[in-house]
């Protein structure tokens, strides 16, 4: 039988991190969504061990400040996009600057340097990803999805989707559903 599931990445990650820290016998405190304060002193080796263990789950210990900030930018954007219209998305730039307490220009440059892609592109990417998720799991019309993701019209949504992925939303939907019918169940 086929199983579909949604997951809360935050919870999953934090649980995993917690488990690994416990394994290594480190006491810790969850300070933020991706921030952990380790009470005990940690050696370089232990850190490496922890990192290796976490890598198996696709979790990385972010090395430096810049990366931290970039991650924060990413997370903020992700949060906004996945809020399905709860949080205002009209001026992401203003929102980011405001939330992270940095000048947007600085944030923008930093982001591009580290990730080789712009904040705008990343935002669009996230929105499109969310759209893809909604298309494949929920029974929403494209119009509804467009509204949720704060597009001014379904045409605008279609345009951006096509520009980002090269496929129209309906073509995408068609392909995914055909895939689910033809690929073997263990995929």
């Amino acid at each position, binding site marked *: 039988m086929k199983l579909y599931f949604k997951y809360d*990445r935050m919870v999953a990650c934090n649980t995993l991190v917690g488990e690994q820290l416990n394994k290594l016998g480190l006491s810790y405190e969850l300070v933020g969504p991706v921030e952990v304060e380790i009470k005990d002193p940690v050696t370089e080796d232990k850190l490496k061990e922890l990192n290796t263990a976490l890598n198996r789950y*696709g979790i990385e210990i972010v090395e430096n400040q810049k990366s931290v900030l970039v991650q924060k930018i*990413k997370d903020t954007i*992700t949060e906004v996009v996945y809020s399905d219209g709860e949080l205002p998305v009209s001026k992401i730039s203003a929102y980011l600057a405001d939330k992270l307490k940095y000048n947007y220009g600085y944030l923008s440059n930093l982001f591009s340097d580290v*990730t*080789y*892609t712009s904040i705008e*592109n*990343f935002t669009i*990417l*996230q929105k499109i*990803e969310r759209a*893809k*998720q909604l298309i*494949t799991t929920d029974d929403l019309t494209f119009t509804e999805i467009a509204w949720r993701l704060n597009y001014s019209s379904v045409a605008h949504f279609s345009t951006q989707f096509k520009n980002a*992925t*090269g*496929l129209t939303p309906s*073509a*995408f939907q*068609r*392909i*995914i559903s*055909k*895939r689910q019918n*033809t*690929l073997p169940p263990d*995929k």
Partner: protein
Amino acid sequence: MFIILADDDEDDRQFFKDAFNEIKIKTMVHVVNDGAALMNYLTKENSQLPHLLFLDLNMPLKNGMECLKEIKSIERLKDISIAIYSTSASEEDIEETFVKGANVYIKKPDDFITLKKILSKVISVNLQYHTSGLDRDNFLLSI
């Protein structure tokens, strides 16, 4: 980023390597000449798997679609991001390759600058999929 390209055309291979050299993102590119060589490499134990695999459709011995099918059926290989790289095809055929498991479809461009742009975009998107926890099953890009 470790990238493998399989293409039987010498000029295309050269274009590819040159383009990658001129892109900002640091990449390591390995080229093979045909499908058989590709599968040989991939199926070797402990071979380093690429982050992204570019497959030309028209290759002798084993063409791109056959390789795609094979890769998708091998446990160790099926999660590799695959970009089909080909001369123009109809919308139907493009959709077909996606259905068969490709993540990216690239129509071979007519000029070098466009090629660089395309590759750049593909790499960067692929990077996002690796680093930002995006759902790889939804990774579909047609350029």
